[in-house]
């Protein structure tokens, strides 16, 4: 029986340890926090970061955790997912205004602040890394 070709088996990758990655992500987030929305710098930075993560994940260069079996209990995740989709869709269809704000409209004034923006970048990077490791 052949093994999946993209399932890396070598767990020894010193640069994938949290002691290395957390400071790297922190620096990347602190830099990203300086780039305002709609700027060329922010777009290029996002393209570069996403590109590296997607390449790492799709090329199988990073060891992955073995997948866990998923049963019918996964349906419980539909509860928050459908509620989020419903609220977001209704507010979007009603124009995404102050009276009917979408999530991004609510997030914009928060992410205008450097600390929140850098923290958001850090969270985004950490979750993306989590996806790469899965």
């Amino acid at each position, binding site marked *: 029986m052949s093994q999946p070709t993209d399932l890396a088996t070598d767990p020894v990758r010193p640069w994938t340890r949290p002691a290395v990655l957390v400071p790297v992500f922190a620096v990347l987030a602190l830099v990203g926090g300086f780039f305002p929305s709609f700027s060329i710098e922010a777009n290029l930075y996002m393209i570069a970061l996403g590109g590296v993560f997607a390449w790492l994940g799709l090329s199988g260069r990073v060891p992955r955790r073995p997948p866990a079996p998923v049963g019918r209990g996964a349906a419980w995740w539909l509860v928050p997912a459908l*509620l989020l989709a419903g609220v977001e869709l209704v507010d979007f269809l009603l124009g995404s205004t102050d*009276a009917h*704000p979408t999530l991004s409209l*609510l997030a914009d004034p928060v992410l205008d602040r450097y600390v929140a923006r850098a923290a958001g*970048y850090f969270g985004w990077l950490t979750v*993306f890394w989590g996806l790469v490791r899965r």
Partner: protein
Amino acid sequence: MSVTRVLAIGGFALVAVLVAVVEWVARRENSRVPTLGELCGFVMEYRAGNVPVGRIALYGFWWWLGWHFFAR
């Protein structure tokens, strides 16, 4: 602040609470509910032939989400 705005914010807050509750249930011993990470891992295992469709879809979604909040 209008009632509809409060309802919208309350809806998003409720989503956050529900995510936390389901994740907490999933992390209990012998839980039948997978964690969000396990669910993502399951989705990313989906392939169409040799194309890792699930992985591309989740990476693409997360990439787009970052662009949407930080670059657009």
